[in-house]
C-alpha cells in the first residue's frame, strides 16, 4: 500500500493583518458566518477541534479578548489552558522565551499571545512549533480585533467594499487602529484617521488612509470608530493633550456629531463621557455588543482556519492526471 506524500505545510500564524491577503480575510469571514449559524442551535459545541490544544498566554490584563478566545476554543471542543503573567513563573522573572519553550513542551497546536511589547508574538513564533495568534502586542497589532470589526461592519452595512470608516482618537498608541486600517484596505474599504496632532503618528498615511485633525471629517464616513482614550497618556510630563475635558470637547463622539445613517463602533472597554457620549453608546447606532458577539465567531473561524482549513495541503495534492510521488 503506497502512501501519498504530502509535504508538511508551512506553519501558519496570525501575527499581523499584513500576513493576510484579501482571499484569506474573505475565507475567515465566510467561515465565521457559517459558525454563527451553528451558535443558534441548542447545543452550541462543535466537535471540530477535539483533541487539539489551545494555550492562551496573556501578559496584559484583558477581560473580553481572553474570554472571547477561551470560549471560541471551547465551542470548537479544543482543550484550553490560560496563563496570565501574574501568579505564574513570569512573576519570578522567567523570560518570554523560556515560558514559550515550557509551554511548547506540551505540544500545543495554537498559542494565543497578548504582550505589552511589540515583537513578542514573533518571538514566540520563532521559538515554538505552534501556530501563533497575536491577541495584541503593544502598540503594534491586534489582528483578530480588526477581523471582528470587519465582520460586524458587514453584518450592519451589508457590504465592505467602498465602506468609509472614520477612526477617531488616540491613533498613536492604538494597535486596534493600525490593524483596522490595514484590514479595511485589504477588503476595498478605507479609513480616515481623526485626532489631535499629538496623537496622530507621523507617517501613518503611508498605510493608505486619510488623516485629519478636524472632527468634522467624520461626517462623510459610514462608520465612526471611537478609540479608547487611555488615562495613562495624561501622566504629568507625558501628556499628549492638555486635559481630557478639552479632548472630549474637541473629539468626543456626541449625538450631535453622529449623522443619521452612520453606525458607531468601539473596541472596548469604553470610557463613557470621554471618547464616547453615553447617549451614543446606549443608542441603536452603537455596534459595541455586536462587535463582542462577532469576536467569538471570528476567533472560532481563525482557529478553524489555522488548524482545519489548511489550504496548503489541498494545493499540494497533485491533480489526478499528474504522476504521484510515492514513498
Amino acid at each position, binding site marked *: 500500500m503506497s502512501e501519498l506524500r504530502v509535504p508538511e505545510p508551512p506553519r501558519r500564524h496570525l501575527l499581523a493583518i499584513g500576513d493576510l491577503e484579501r482571499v484569506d480575510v474573505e475565507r475567515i469571514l465566510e467561515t465565521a458566518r457559517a459558525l454563527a449559524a451553528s451558535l443558534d442551535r441548542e447545543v452550541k459545541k462543535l466537535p471540530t477541534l477535539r483533541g487539539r490544544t489551545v494555550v492562551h498566554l496573556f501578559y496584559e490584563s484583558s477581560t473580553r479578548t481572553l474570554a472571547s478566545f477561551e470560549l471560541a476554543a471551547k465551542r470548537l471542543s479544543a482543550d484550553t489552558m490560560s496563563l496570565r503573567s501574574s501568579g505564574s513563573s513570569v512573576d519570578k522573572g522567567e*523570560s*518570554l*522565551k523560556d515560558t514559550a519553550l515550557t509551554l511548547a513542551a506540551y505540544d500545543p497546536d495554537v498559542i494565543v499571545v497578548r*504582550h505589552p*511589547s*511589540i*515583537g*513578542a508574538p*514573533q*518571538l514566540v513564533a520563532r521559538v515554538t512549533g505552534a501556530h501563533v495568534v497575536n491577541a495584541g*502586542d*503593544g*502598540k*503594534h*497589532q491586534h489582528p483578530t480585533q480588526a477581523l471582528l470589526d470587519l465582520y460586524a461592519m458587514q453584518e450592519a452595512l451589508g457590504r465592505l467594499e467602498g465602506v468609509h470608516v472614520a477612526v477617531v482618537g488616540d491613533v498613536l*498608541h*492604538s*494597535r486596534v487602529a*493600525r490593524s483596522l486600517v490595514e484590514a479595511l484596505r485589504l477588503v476595498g474599504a478605507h479609513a480616515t484617521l481623526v485626532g489631535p496632532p499629538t496623537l496622530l*503618528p*507621523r*507617517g*501613518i498615511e*503611508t*498605510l493608505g488612509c486619510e488623516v485629519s485633525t478636524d472632527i468634522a471629517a467624520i461626517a462623510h464616513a459610514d462608520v465612526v470608530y471611537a478609540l479608547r482614550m487611555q488615562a495613562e497618556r495624561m501622566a504629568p510630563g507625558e501628556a499628549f493633550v492638555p486635559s481630557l475635558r478639552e479632548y472630549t470637547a474637541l473629539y468626543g463622539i456626541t449625538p450631535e456629531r453622529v449623522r443619521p445613517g452612520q453606525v458607531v463602533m468601539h473596541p472596548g472597554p469604553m470610557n463613557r463621557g470621554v471618547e464616547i457620549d453615553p447617549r451614543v453608546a446606549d443608542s441603536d447606532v452603537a455596534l459595541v455588543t455586536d462587535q463582542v458577539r462577532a469576536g467569538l465567531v471570528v476567533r472560532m473561524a481563525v482557529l478553524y482556519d489555522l488548524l482545519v482549513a489548511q489550504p496548503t495541503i489541498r494545493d499540494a495534492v497533485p491533480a489526478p492526471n499528474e504522476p504521484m510521488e510515492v514513498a
Partner: protein
Amino acid sequence: MLVSRNGRADSLSLEGRVVAPAQGIDEALRITVTDGVISAIEPGAAAGLVVSPAFVDPHVHLRTPGREDEETLRSGTEAAAAGGYCTILAMPNTDPVVDSASVLGALVERAREEAAIPTGFMAAISKGQRGEELTEMVELAGAGAAAFTDDGKPVVSAGLMRRALQYGTLARLPLALHCEEPSLSRGGHAHEGAVSAELGLGPYPSAAESVMVERDCALAELERRPIHLMHLSARESVEALERAREAGVPVTAEVTPHHLVLTDEAVRSLDPNVKMNPPLRSEEDRSALLDALRRGAITCIATDHAPHARHEKDVPFEDAPFGVTGLETAFSALYTRLVLPGELPLETLLERMSSGPARAFGLDEPRVEVGARANLVVLDLDAEWEVTESGFRSLSANSWLLGETLRSRVVRTVADGRVVFQA
C-alpha cells in the same frame, strides 16, 4: 595613549595590489617588514590580494569592566584584529564608568596583558556619565585617556558641555559627542517615519539628533575648540555638520556601517539585531550619509561595536537593548553592499576606515612608507563567506549580518609590527 600586550615584532613580506590612498599608492608591490618596521617597498605581483594600511576604529564597546560575559579586552581586540584593525578606541560606559584615574589605570594594566592590538581607552566627560560634574580631565589625560566622551548618553546640559569644551583645553584631548536630545528621543525605538507609524514603535525623530548637533557645533564655534560627532544617522545632522565646517568650526564626524547600508525598512522584521541607537533611518538619510562620506564631510567609519548577551537580545523587539556588533564584518559588509554595487570607491572606503579616524583622534596614521611601523591589512576581495554565530571571535553575536553571505575577507592583519591575525 595606546596599549597592547607585549610581544616581539615580526619580520615578513607582503605582496599584492597595494592601495594606500593617503600615500597616493595603488600598484602591485612587495612590502618587506623587518622587526616590525617597513624596510623595503619594491615592485611585486598582485597575487589576487589587496594590501592596505590597517583599520582604525574610534568607537568600540569592550564591555570591560562589568560585562565580561559580553566582551573582554582579549575577545574584543582579537575580534578587531580579525576585522583588519590595528587600533581601536574603547568607550567608557562600563560598570563602573571610566571616570577616574584608578578605573582607567586598572584597564590599562589589564590591556597590557590582554589586548591583541593597540587599544586606547576613552574617559567620561562627566562623573558617572550623569551629566552633572566634569571628570578630573587633566588627571585622566595623565593616566592615559585617549579622548573624552559620555557615549551612550548625551551631555544634556548645554552649560556643562560648554565647561567641558573650556576645561578640556587643559587635557589636550579630543571630545567625542553622542548627540541626542532625550526629551525628543524618549520612548523611541525606531526612526520617526512610515515604518515606526505602521509598526506602532515609539518614534525617535531625526531632530532628536540634529538639534544636539546644532547645539554642539554652536558651542564649539563659541569656544573655538574641536569636537568629534559620533555615529551620525540623519540628513539634518549632516547638513548641520557641513554648515559648521564651512564656518570654519573644527568638527569631525563618523558614521557606522549599518547606517550606511540599512534603512528603517529593515526594522519591519522586528529582529532585535537591527535595533540600535541612533536608529536606522530613511533612504534619504542613508544616501546623505554616504554622500557626506564620499565627499569627505564625514571622514571616519566607526563600527559602534556594541556586544550584547544572547539572552538580552532574545526578547521582543521593544524590550531589546540598543546595539549591534561590527568589528569582524565592517570591511566585508561595506565592500559587498557599497563598493561592489558602485556606491563607494574602494580607495574611499579604505581611507575612511584608516587615516580618517586616526587623524580625527590625533593618532599616528597607518601608512605604507619605508621606516613606518607596519600597520597593514591583507584583503582577499574575491573570497566569499557566510556570517554565522559560531564564526565570531567576539563573545557576542548580535550582528545584523547573521546568515548573510559577504564578498571579501580579511586574511591577515599586522598591527604595530606584529602579525595579530592570520586567516
